[in-house]
């Protein structure tokens, strides 16, 4: 569904992505894990067209999108849920959601609206309760849910989730991951970027480990959890010698 090939990207003179190649198949949840500054968020921004690539190709359903404007990729059904939620604080929850379907044709917006809201409220009952409240007054977890819900309003074929658990209490984060699982069960393809490797690996089908702009590992969640590199980087274990016990 999504095929990223040899993608490099820079911030000024600093190379952040070094020929990254990976793919996401239809219906898969793939997580991309890595430490601070590994290039995870940049990679998502590059895919959705916010950040330019310096080389390489990105194909979404066989269509090359590396030169596309972000608004075009959204129309293709590739939606990013940004880090730090980025919701419109002064608008109500409903208004935020309505904006999510902005990219759809007017007629469709109207036709879809009620059923779409219904679906979203089943997925996030709390948003129904808070429908008339200003988004800025929601808690962190609720804001994150709103952010995801807003993306869902555009009826995405694939979701790019950037650090959905950032800054959330563990219980709330768990709720977010529960939703992620549900979305997958509904057939949404998801690329999930997370620092919380353990949680991310629990919900995904496959994962990649990004380190200093390079992919150094690919595999099933079980494999990655067992990998010493993942353990060292994310679970705080260290090793110095090959024969360390």
């Amino acid at each position, binding site marked *: 569904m999504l095929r990223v090939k040899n993608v490099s990207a820079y911030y000024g003179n600093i190379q952040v992505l070094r*020929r990254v190649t990976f793919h996401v198949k239809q219906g898969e949840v793939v997580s991309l894990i890595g430490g601070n500054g590994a290039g995870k968020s940049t990679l998502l921004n590059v895919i959705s067209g916010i950040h330019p690539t310096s080389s390489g190709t990105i194909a979404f359903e066989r269509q090359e999108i590396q030169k596309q404007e972000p608004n075009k990729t959204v129309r293709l059904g590739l939606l990013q849920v940004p880090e730090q939620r980025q919701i419109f604080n002064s608008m109500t929850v409903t208004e935020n959601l309505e904006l999510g379907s902005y990219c759809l044709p007017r007629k469709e917006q109207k036709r879809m609206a009620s059923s779409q809201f219904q679906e979203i409220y089943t997925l996030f009952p709390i948003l129904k309760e808070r429908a008339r409240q200003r988004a800025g007054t929601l808690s962190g977890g609720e804001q994150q849910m709103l952010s995801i819900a807003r993306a869902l309003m555009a009826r995405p074929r694939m979701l790019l989730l950037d650090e959905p658990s950032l800054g959330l209490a563990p219980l709330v984060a768990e709720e977010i991951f529960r939703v992620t699982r549900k979305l997958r069960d509904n057939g949404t393809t998801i690329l999930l970027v997370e620092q919380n490797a353990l949680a991310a690996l629990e919900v995904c089908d496959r994962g990649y480990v990004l380190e200093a702009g390079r992919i150094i590992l*690919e595999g099933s969640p079980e*494999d990655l959890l*067992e990998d010493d590199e993942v353990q060292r980087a994310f679970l705080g274990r260290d090793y110095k*010698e*090959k024969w360390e016990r």
Partner: protein
Amino acid sequence: MSAFWNEKVETLPREELADLQLERLQVTLNRGYAKVDFYRQRFEELGFLPEDINSMEDLARLPCTTVNDLVEHYPYGLFSVPLKSIVRLKFSAAPRIRPLVIGYTQRDVQNWLEVMARHMIAMGIGVRDIIQVAFNYGLFTGAFTFNHAAELIGATVAPTSIASATIQIQIMQDFRSTVLATSPTFAMHIAETRERLGIDLDQTFLRIGLFGPEAMSPDVRRRLEERLRIQAYTVYGVNEMVEPGMAAECQEKSGLHVAEDHFYPEIVDPDSCQPLAQGQEGELAVTTLTNEGYPLIRFRTGDITTLDSSPCPCGRTGVRMAPPLSRSDDLFMVRGISIHPEQVKRLLGEAAPEVESYRIIVRKRDGLNDQLELQVAYPENYVSEWYHTHALADDIRAHLRRALGLGVKVKLMEASNLAEDVGRVVFED
């Protein structure tokens, strides 16, 4: 019609396969660069960064890795994970002569079994089959792979190891074995023994022969198929990666399908290590794409072969390699054990430093066991008392046997009899 073990991967269109290979190659190079000093140094000397690889063709910019590189970094220099992640070690039968150790992580072992299971299914082996594994479990650790892969696909294993041909035949009859996994040489010996014992082919149930590690010539294949009434298939492996399992024949018998999602094969010029055009004959160099424990980049296997990526009627898209019947180095095989002439020279020097000239005779016998003979010239000023001669020959024999794990015939003779073959390997029929 043929069944698949992992149809999706085995029939992946070549274009998609190439994408998958590139993705995995980059991971392999990134890991090699980050974790293995040997590769990092090599990259740095070349001013090469893993991200300089844009396509599979760019791989040719890197030099080949040779067995000597592995030996120089013995034991753990080329491991890319700490030992606690390694679940299996495999080392050469003669660690003192050519020290080599390869490590496999849990995932590596699983991948190995997976490719082996694919090959077995491709040959038509299934749950109803009884696989008689007549490999030496002691010296050839690959023998276990037959067991585990057979269990994985649900077949039954009868590990007969190195029991004599007579016993093999008896077990074959009693258990009704349907598959024989062994070397072509031993299979031929079993066939001969069966004829000698006068056992009718109708009393055996064999239908498939799974042969390795040596490749069989078309003539040997024909004779084995006739004399054992089987379909004979070759399975290929590389000792430093997976052996057996890297490639094997399907029922079309027109080349060995390489498990290309795990191994990237190239045919290179043995001198320059540059890739040759497809269809040209050259040395097989392999890059591992998924190995975690012991990644190898453009490893020279020493086997001479060709590659063919044209579609195979069986539907598998993995490139097909011709059975490798020759080598680019002097390595030769006796009863399934690879021996390098340098090893023999070194062992001889250790056992009897006074010996100056010798030659190695290899008698390849399709039917009976191969024989390795060492013809040694009497040392200078040697007093040829019979007990002396015996003691010297015994010393050499015992030493070689211990190191190689193989009985060697030792013959002492006048230097003039060695003619021009001093230090060389002579093949006799």
